């Protein structure tokens, strides 16, 4: 616990963004979908955090909550998203109006986002150049001429050949990899401090993916950007993350450095995820370990720990009753699992429960 507070707690200039107890719910006619229901993590300045989890675990909604672009009927119901600027200022993004002036000045300029499908998230009726220049003209006091020059520089920066010609190209005229580069150029146009990348390589081929990942890493180094990377591919996580947040059913169930997540995972869900992926070079054709059952329906979340019906370490009478609190372990890892404590207050359990330090 002692190392925890000195390294990570607020007020420290190393932390760029802190998400505390974030809950984003969708109020539909059929009921409340708790898309994000307790996400806690920090992003270090200049570091890369990966959000991992299966579809429907709330990773994209978490990202959208940070930018305040959650679609209706969704809304942030609880929690804080603290943005620590380098000049010592701290802003709670949750307190800002989504349509207000301050949020609009942060969105795109301080925090920018790359979306998954470039074909559907870029405008088909505007040229690439127009879409890059839009952000520049909106956030900076420049004329069109200068914005165009900057747009050409950006396209060159992300490795698009013949940038001055491609500026006037439409999205459908570019290949998948080039589209994703154009999207990155738009996101970088205002030199954001934080880049949120939502599955930016999922729709790409492995060969293109490798090049885009290299590009993102290189740009991060050169521009000193902080990156939040959302993916479901553990291979990609191993490639680029400094820290990893594993999400399951709207909750951050485990967070820690990339090395602990891969070599000493604590949460049974993280362990099960590792076992269920076929690994290149380690194939023996035996059946894969699977996580039994399936992700529960959003309206029928299990009580207690939401993972308990699929968990191999399920403790009857404990896991199905108690909602696990966040336990901070020595190594700087946070885990939401009753194996590591948190059940004592309810009733004593005779398990090798690791207490917080």
């Amino acid at each position, binding site marked *: 616990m002692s190392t925890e507070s000195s390294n990570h707690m607020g007020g420290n200039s190393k932390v760029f963004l802190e998400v505390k107890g974030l809950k984003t719910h969708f109020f539909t006619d059929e009921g409340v979908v708790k898309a994000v229901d307790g996400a806690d993590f920090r992003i270090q300045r200049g570091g890369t955090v990966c959000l991992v989890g299966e579809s429907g675990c709330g990773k994209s909604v978490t990202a959208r909550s940070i930018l305040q672009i959650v679609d209706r009927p969704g809304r942030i119901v609880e929690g804080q998203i603290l943005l620590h600027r380098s000049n010592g200022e701290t802003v709670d993004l949750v307190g800002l109006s989504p349509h207000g002036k301050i949020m609009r000045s942060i969105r795109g300029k301080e925090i920018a986002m790359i979306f998954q499908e470039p074909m559907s998230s870029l405008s088909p009726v505007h040229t690439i150049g127009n879409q890059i220049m839009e952000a520049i003209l909106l956030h900076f006091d420049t004329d069109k001429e200068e914005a165009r020059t900057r747009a050409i520089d950006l396209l060159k920066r992300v490795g698009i050949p013949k940038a001055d010609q491609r500026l006037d190209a439409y999205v459908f005229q570019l290949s998948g990899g080039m589209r994703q580069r154009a999207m990155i150029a738009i996101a970088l146009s205002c030199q954001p401090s934080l880049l949120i990348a939502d599955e930016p390589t999922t729709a790409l081929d492995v060969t293109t993916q490798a090049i885009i990942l290299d590009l993102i890493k290189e740009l991060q180094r050169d521009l000193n950007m902080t990156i939040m990377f959302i993916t479901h591919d553990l291979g990609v996580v*191993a490639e680029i993350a400094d820290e990893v947040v594993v999400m399951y059913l709207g909750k951050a169930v485990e967070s820690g450095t990339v090395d602990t997540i891969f070599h000493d995972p604590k949460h049974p869900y993280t362990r099960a995820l590792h076992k269920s992926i076929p690994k290149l070079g380690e194939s023996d054709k035996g059946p894969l370990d699977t996580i039994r059952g399936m992700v529960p329906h959003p309206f029928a979340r299990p009580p207690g720990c939401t993972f308990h019906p699929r968990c191999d370490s399920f403790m009857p009478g404990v896991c199905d009753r108690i909602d696990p609190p966040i336990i901070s372990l020595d190594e700087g890892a946070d885990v939401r699992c009753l194996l590591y404590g948190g059940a004592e207050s309810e009733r004593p359990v005779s398990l090798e429960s690791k207490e917080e330090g």
Partner: protein
Amino acid sequence: MAANATQGSQPSVSSNGAPLLELKNLKMHFPITTRGLLRKVIGHVKAVDGASLTIQEGETFALVGESGCGKTTLGRCIIRIYQPTAGVINYGEPDGTVVDLATIQGKHLKPYRRAIRMIFQDPYSSLNPRRKVLQIVGEPLIRHNIASGSELEDRVADLLRKVGLRPEYILRYPHAFSGGERQRIGVARALALNPRLVIADEAVSALDVSVQAQILNLLQDLQAEFNLTYLFVAHDLSVVEHIADRVAVMYVGKLVELGTRGQIFNAPKHPYTEALMSAVPKPDPRLRDAGSRIRLEGEVADPSNPPSGCYFHPRCRYTQDRCKVKEPALRDIGQGQHVACHFAEQLQLKGVAGM
């Protein structure tokens, strides 16, 4: 159960020795036409441009490559969704007769549509949302006049049980199922007619990792139970390494390498195979900067206007003058491994273990 059948990686050849499927120089060219009334043909997209391979009964044959390389088109030619432009698709019947599927037309194809079935990629768009599971899975049985009425219900319930779904779900619509369950419905539909060959076109790509593992295990169990042959079209190499007996690598409509799983993954002979495997991110952060990474520059060649010589030469790091002018043929370099590269013997390429 799965282990028994798959461990014997030597595929069982049918009694007369003929392969289940043999493709000879298969071509599928799509015309590019001008707009307007005349629709003048101004070129061709050579989606599949001379593919030859054999698939033995009981094996899992995987087709890998980047998007646009023609692997899906090749699968669709076999099942005759497309009429191939040229080439032979020899299908070996259980009694030993060999039929060229490429020349058969219309209703004469019907018996072969029973024997060769397909599992589609996206379980959300490949199931009709207005049909119940009974209708979706039962449709092939009705079309082929195999069952109707209560017998149909029994057979569909039986199929659902085989793929791990509860038979009580028979009257539900697809929207009531999760992605993994929908894919199981797709598998049940493919199995309804007791096929011999199942073409799985990116059958697990759209699924989450935990569900993907379940479906892969299911496919292996079903293969052991019904002696199925799979043509597994995929771009995820770790999945292919897990499930395949033999692998063919495609690049711009042509096969560039073909061999057993061990040959392709441990001792690749084509530079494209090497590059493709090196691009797969390794799920271990400690290996992040270890080994040599190959980054393929440029884009996949345009199949309507491919480069001269070897199609891969503009992106190949071992390219020489000969590659620019002479197109390499797919040739046997021993032990069943086929490579289309002039310098296959000279190059020292790395398999997955060396990366």
